[in-house]
């Protein structure tokens, strides 16, 4: 086997190259180290990243990892958040997926992290991100968050009689990812209940969320019960029957099955009444 060090020409080229390589690599992330950093953050150990790295990382992916770690490290301090914010602002100025990711986190800072949330600023950042890179996953996710802000804290109009769901529905049109469409449908439906909107306005969103599917945990069971009960309240016995039967098929032994059986009977009675001449 030919060793690179065996050929004199190659040796003269390779040795300085090997020495210079780390210096040339400044600005490009070492993949293993970066993967390790993301793994630590994904395992809720941001402190491991911050122990190794500081704010002056030069590659953009490493800067993003550092700022992401900084967001979740305990204790949360304004200084930590501001340092992360500064890095994110710098990264968000780019024109790639990483910039979109940073812009999304920047908006989250204003919505959730600072002691005094600035919902208007967060909304503005989500909107700007969606305008700049509409197809990015982070812009799409940002639209879900923007819609929730509009539903609850920065409505277009809070005047009595205003359709509070309409602004969120308008944003739904810009979301192409089915899972995010589902999540927003579900949120519009739940907000409709909290905001005491008519059942006819909110129920189609809950149905749409269920049709896209994939909701897990107790949220799935709750949704099927909810669709059974609210359909009955809305005077849609056929839909109520469908969901009651589905609940009983999926959760035959659960505590709510007893009442769902009663609701199913109620739905069937209503259907029989409707069918009667």
């Amino acid at each position, binding site marked *: 086997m030919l060793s690179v060090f065996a050929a004199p020409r190659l040796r003269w080229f390779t040795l300085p190259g090997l020495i210079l390589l780390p210096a040339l690599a400044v600005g490009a992330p070492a993949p293993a180290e970066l993967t390790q950093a993301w793994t630590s*953050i*994904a395992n809720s150990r941001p402190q491991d990243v911050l122990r190794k790295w500081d704010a002056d990382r030069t590659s953009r992916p490493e800067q993003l990892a550092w700022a992401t770690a900084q967001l979740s490290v305990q204790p*949360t301090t304004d200084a930590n958040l501001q340092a992360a914010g500064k890095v994110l602002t710098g990264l968000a100025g780019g024109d790639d997926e990483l910039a979109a990711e940073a812009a999304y986190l920047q908006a989250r800072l204003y919505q959730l992290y600072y002691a005094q949330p600035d919902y208007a600023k967060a909304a503005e950042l989500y909107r700007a991100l969606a305008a700049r890179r509409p197809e990015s996953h982070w812009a799409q996710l940002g639209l879900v968050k923007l819609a*929730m802000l509009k539903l609850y804290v920065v409505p277009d109009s809070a005047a009595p009689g205003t359709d509070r769901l309409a602004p969120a529905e308008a944003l739904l049109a810009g979301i192409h990812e089915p899972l995010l469409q589902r*999540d927003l449908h579900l*949120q519009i439906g*739940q907000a409709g209940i909290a905001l005491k909107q008519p059942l006819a306005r909110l129920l189609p969103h809950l149905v749409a969320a269920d049709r896209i599917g994939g*909701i*897990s*945990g107790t949220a799935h069971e709750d949704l099927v019960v909810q669709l059974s009960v609210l359909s009955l309240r809305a005077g849609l016995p056929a839909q109520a029957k469908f969901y009651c039967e589905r609940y009983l098929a999926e959760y035959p032994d659960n505590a709510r099955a007893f009442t769902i059986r009663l609701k199913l009977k109620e739905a069937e009675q209503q259907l029989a009444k409707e069918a009667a001449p």
Partner: protein
Amino acid sequence: MRRRTRRFGFWLLLLAYGVASYWVFTRSTPVINERPVTIRFAHWQIERGPPDGVAAAIKRYEELNPRVKVEQLLVPGATIYPQWMRSNLAGGMGPDLMEWGMWMSGTKDIPARYFEPLTAELAQPNPYNRGTSQEKIPWEKTFHDQLLGPRRDSPDPGQIYAVTISETSVRLFCNIELLKTITGSVAAPKTYDDFRQILAKVQDYARRTGRLIYGLAGSRDNGLWVAENVFSGPLLGVTRELDDPGYLYLYDRNALAAYLEGRWNYHTPAVEAGMTLIQEMAKAMKPGFLQLLRNDAMLEFFRGEAVFIYTGTYDATTLRRMSTFKVVPMRLPSVTPDDPVVGRYVIGIGGEGSGETGVAIYLNRNSAHKAEALDFLRFLTSVPGNQLFTDNSGWLPSVNGVRVPDEIKNFREYQLGYTLGQAPFDIIGSEMNLVWNQNFYRLMGEHGSVGQFADALDQAMPVAIRKDLQNEMRNTLLLVRPQDSIIVATAELAAGPPADEAQSVRQHGMEAGQTMSEGLAFQMQLELEKTAGKK
């Protein structure tokens, strides 16, 4: 020479002492580990039974996995466990696996902060079920109730954080000889009013004979359990009225918000009816029972000074092994619409569903041996592992396909009926529960009255309930915030190279869960703003 040797010996001794001290204060493991990996499993089920059951499962697991040693840590629950758990988790010294319960006051933030969701793992079959009836069935579906409690108590509605190892129900355990002596019959009460009549007979018997006998063995814990049961009957109708989302179930946050909106209070007739039933139960216990603990009630029962003890089937093994008389488990009859005292406020019978599994075990997010800890959990909740637990503990299994011993089969006979929600209106929040407990004496004794108790509660509750709803919101946000970093990190790992599909699934699952939790926090914020300044 001898002096030098002595001095050397002295320094050697000092060094050994120093090393030993260092080890004791900085490590929790033995100096020499017999196996490369040690995982620690902490729980508070120190009753007769469960430690034997877990030990049997550990023994078999260690035979199958020679690399791993599992240590069972038994920590008394009522007083020590919550503080012990928090300080260990905060200090990064928490065991790999830990029991946790939603009802432990002041610990609601723990799962979000310290535990790892198991949702993705639960969607896959449990490998230890190979060759059993549960083979190829997703792990989550192998549990008798499909993990009802962990799904309900999850801080994140899209995730499941725990698995359960047993199933418990609450029963009236009766000293049958004493019942016969007092009432002339061994028949179990069929209605709530039958039970009321038995308690009256016991009181009369004690007065006539001068014997120190009560209807119910009393302690703070047993009092709370029986209060929960009887209180919830009349609340079923209130729950139905407040169920705007159509869940057929009232989450604590909804009950708290409805109070702030003025939709119910402690003078609401059905709520007062529930408190009347609590008063009846409290009168059947010895005076001062609130100062006593569960063990005191057990001793009272063992001494033959109480006809019944109302407790969970988790005490059944202890009762069976330690009592000198025959103990018969009975069901406390639900209060029904034909009850002569409170029937007009009752819409129907409260249901127990088909049982709820319990003893929920969580995986410490900071565990150094997550894979091994998860593997042990899989074994403990597999058909063979859970069978060992059941056979050696006398507790019900949590897993389908496990054979239930004859003597505990009737613990699985459940009452069908309406569902209430997370809790009756005495424990829907920790602040409000404090107010309830501080004023409970107003319901007790000769001068105690429901009206006086309700007055005091409605005076103090608006502030306490507002605090509880704020805490609920804060705890939800506690969960939401750190998820941003995890979502971004999993997205990066998913993108690779190499692309990682499992990380992608995790990312999208977390995004959905986070959005749901955020929605809940917004809803709570809306309620707090809407009701600010309301009395």
